[in-house]
């Protein structure tokens, strides 16, 4: 073996070890989700699967009405991601293609958005939702999240790399700015749009604190709160097998989105890091 092969072999060994270590907690959770209640409490802990996966999933699904939780969470995750993408595209288009008074606002705007995460305004935001009669509604769940620094910066960065003669050519062909935006700029931004979709979908799917505050009936709860309900409804000994079945099911949609768009996601991140 050449030194180079030895080095590659060592790298592979190290990487595989890392993959295994990082995956272990989820592997263990997966095992537990296939056991019966009593098997989950066996000592020493059992590390090979049982046969109860389907029963546990059904049990978890019915206990917290997961169908409804999935529906609500999907609506707000897709909704917020789409709205954020559209707003960011529009703002970035304005900032890169037009001269107007107040254009220098971009910088303060991004600063403000970064410095005002929900917790520094949480009580008044809740009061605002109450004034709007948005408590327990999709609007209440989504609206406070619609500002996106990440999106505006990502698209601005990308629009600046689009060749200068493209808008000129469009103008010569008689296309107005909106036509150019919709027919040319948006389609060539699809990699960035997909990357931002992944980021915002996962971000919204993971929300816990805000949905906990702004909703108060079972039919408007989200998946993350469902996990808490699954754990809290139990007696002294948690039914780990059912809890883990629910946990595993709850992480499938964001995982699927990440895997489906992984190429665009990685490229989008690379573009953002390049600066």
């Amino acid at each position: 073996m050449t030194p180079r092969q030895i080095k590659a072999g060592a790298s592979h060994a190290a990487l595989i070890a890392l993959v295994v270590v990082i995956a272990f907690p989820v592997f263990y959770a997966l095992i537990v989700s296939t056991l019966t209640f009593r098997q989950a409490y066996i000592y020493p802990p059992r590390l090979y699967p049982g046969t109860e996966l389907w029963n546990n999933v059904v049990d978890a699904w019915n206990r917290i009405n997961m169908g409804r939780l999935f529906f609500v969470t999907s609506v707000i995750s897709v909704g917020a991601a789409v709205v954020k993408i559209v707003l960011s595209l529009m703002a970035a288009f304005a900032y890169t293609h037009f001269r107007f008074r107040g254009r220098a606002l971009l910088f303060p705007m991004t600063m403000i958005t970064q410095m005002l995460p929900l917790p520094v305004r949480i009580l008044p935001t809740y009061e605002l939702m109450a004034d709007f009669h948005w408590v327990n509604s999709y609007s209440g769940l989504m609206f406070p999240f619609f500002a996106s620094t990440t999106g505006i910066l990502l698209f601005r960065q990308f629009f600046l790399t689009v060749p200068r003669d493209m808008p000129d050519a469009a103008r010569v062909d008689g296309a107005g700015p909106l036509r150019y935006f919709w027919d040319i700029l948006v389609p060539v931004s699809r990699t960035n749009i997909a990357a931002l979709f992944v980021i915002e979908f996962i971000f919204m799917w993971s929300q816990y604190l805000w949905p906990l505050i702004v909703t108060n009936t079972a039919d408007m709860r989200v998946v993350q709160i469902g996990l808490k309900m699954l754990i809290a409804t139990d007696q002294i000994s948690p039914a780990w097998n059912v809890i883990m079945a629910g946990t595993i099911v709850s992480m499938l949609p964001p995982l699927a989105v990440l895997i489906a768009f992984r190429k665009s996601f990685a490229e989008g991140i690379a573009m953002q890091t390049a600066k």
Partner: protein
Amino acid sequence: MENVVEEEKFPGHPLLPYLLILPSVAVIVVFLVFPFLQSVQESFFATTAFGTKSVFVGLRNYERLFTSPDFRASAVATLLFAAFVMLVGLSVSLAVAHLLNQKLRGQGFYQIALIWTYALSPAVAGAIWALMFAPATGFVPYVVAKLSGGYLMNWMTNGSLALLVVSAAATWKMLGYNIVFFLAGLQNIPEEFVDAARVDGAGPWRTFWDITFPMLSPTTTFLLFVNMIYAFFQVFGLIDIMTQGGPGDATNILIYKLYRDAFLYLDTGAASAESCVVFVVISVAAIIQLRFATRKAIYAR
């Protein structure tokens, strides 16, 4: 580097740019700036028990906060927690990304197999780690008992251990995100810099610290900021699922205390003051981060 185009691409549309930024600006003003200013205002008032009357109390809420042992304990827990997430998380992620950043077969597989924790929510991470560390029956206490000859580890009664376990769980969940960004940052470093250092006879260790690490600093600074925000706020679900701030107040980090003060104890004054304190900390971090990013951009030119 940046070709900021100063010319008008579509002349004759004076109103259009305003219409395009209007929705973003409206959202920021209505849902961010306005509520925040109200937070500031409410931090100078105290509300009577039934919420019927507000009384101006000046700096009393802040005074109350800074002299309260609860708040100090919470601040210390938050700082320890955030320091762990930022330092341990970023070191491990950078090491992994560095290892991954070479020509190897199976790149695609390794990438997805190392970044998928990004898709997990903090609450999911909390549930899984609570299972792993379940006293008496969990996998980790079992291994610890085996190795130590019978030590019974129980993070539900041991405050420092609880803080360590929630920190580790939170760090684990962020590995995927950090690795993606570090890997992208590493791949953007021109190879000739690293090769030049090699030719000059620098070993891999020297090359990393003298070339790679400094050139990576915009990514590192960005990730420090993101991880800080994460450790300060986004871990709420993880704490709520794992410990609810306990045992005692060992894991009662600021966001959890803020939630309880605001929505369980209905202490509007204290909660608003806490919001403002957090705002100051975040602003300082944001400004430092932007300074760094800008300075680096100029240097790169």
